[in-house]
């Protein structure tokens, strides 16, 4: 099953591991993006994500389809992105997959986070300490 969500609360990582569980699966791979406390020497006070919700979910679901067409044995896929203010050290995104053998889970998750960063209409704004202006971030290729 594909589990795709935009959430406003802390992501429950134990719950995500449960979504991946399957007696036929020997492997799960979980990627967690967390918020850092610094960027180029500036201290990050807080950061917030906003999304073009309907299109973000559409693109996240397309990523799931892409994964399933490239890695045929994937069992469950989870893509959760948190919106709003995300305190430092908390998860902003979780991408996970389970499969019978490890290579599919590992490769698909790595591919999916790259895809998310280039396709899913979500934006992050960082607010810095001191005199530094806040900034809308831009994912590099």
């Amino acid at each position, binding site marked *: 099953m594909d589990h795709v969500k935009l959430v406003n609360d802390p992501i429950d990582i134990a719950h995500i591991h449960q979504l991946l569980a399957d007696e036929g699966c020997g492997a799960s791979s979980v990627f967690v*993006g967390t918020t850092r406390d610094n960027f180029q020497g500036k201290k990050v006070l807080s950061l917030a*994500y906003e999304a*073009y919700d309907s299109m973000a979910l*559409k693109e996240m679901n397309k990523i799931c389809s892409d994964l399933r067409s490239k890695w045929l044995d994937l069992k469950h896929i989870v893509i959760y992105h948190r919106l709003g203010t995300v305190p430092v050290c908390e998860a902003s995104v979780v991408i996970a997959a389970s499969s019978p053998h490890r290579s599919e889970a590992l490769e698909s998750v790595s591919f999916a986070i790259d895809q998310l960063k280039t396709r899913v*209409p979500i*934006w992050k704004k960082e607010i810095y300490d001191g005199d530094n202006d806040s900034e*809308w971030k*831009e994912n590099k290729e």
Partner: protein
Amino acid sequence: MNADGPVVNVHVLFFAKSRELANTPRSTVEVPTEITATELLDHLVSKFGLTSIRDNLILAHNESYIDNLSDRILFKEGDELAIIPPLSGG
């Protein structure tokens, strides 16, 4: 932008920096039923004060990215257009 031919109203959504510059998250805009993406973008940039970020913007029409600014877009009444600054999800 050539508004001599038929026109329709579309909903324009602004995100991130474009929303801050436009000072609104959405606006209803009258557009020709057929227009190139570049012309449309130029019009919206000028109308909503987005010149400082113009070079990095892309557009999405009914939740699909417009990949080429030379593409011709065909609009229907009530379509949705989004101004998409550089992404930073994940």
